């Protein structure tokens, strides 16, 4: 379970801040749709 820290309050949404460290090279970033590895969440096609 996610444990809120004492800076957080109820009835509010929180998205953690991205901390940038490195990026894909330009062509790889374009093809992936982001230059940030930590934001790359590709879709796996659902077969049925």
């Amino acid at each position, binding site marked *: 379970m996610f444990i809120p820290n004492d800076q957080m309050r109820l009835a509010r949404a929180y998205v953690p*801040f991205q901390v*940038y460290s490195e990026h894909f090279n330009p062509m790889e970033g374009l093809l992936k749709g982001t230059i940030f590895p930590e934001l790359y969440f590709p879709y796996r096609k659902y077969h049925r």
Partner: protein
Amino acid sequence: MDRDQLCMLQELMAVEFTALEFHLYLDTHPTDQKALMEYNSVVQKLKVLKQQYQERYGPITYEQPSSYPWQWINEPWPWEICYE
């Protein structure tokens, strides 16, 4: 569109995309010095590349002078290009 032009166009897309990604990141992280430095260097690279592309293949921005006759309307337009 020939191979060379398509290749350069895609490189331009890639570099411009990198600049855009840093741009959005910096909107919410305006004090990230490392990202800011990298943004500035990508933008510099983009400027050179865009200039080279337009000198070779004609204007793709409003800030580019044109040879005669008016080059802006030359085909193909972006949706007509075969990006194979």
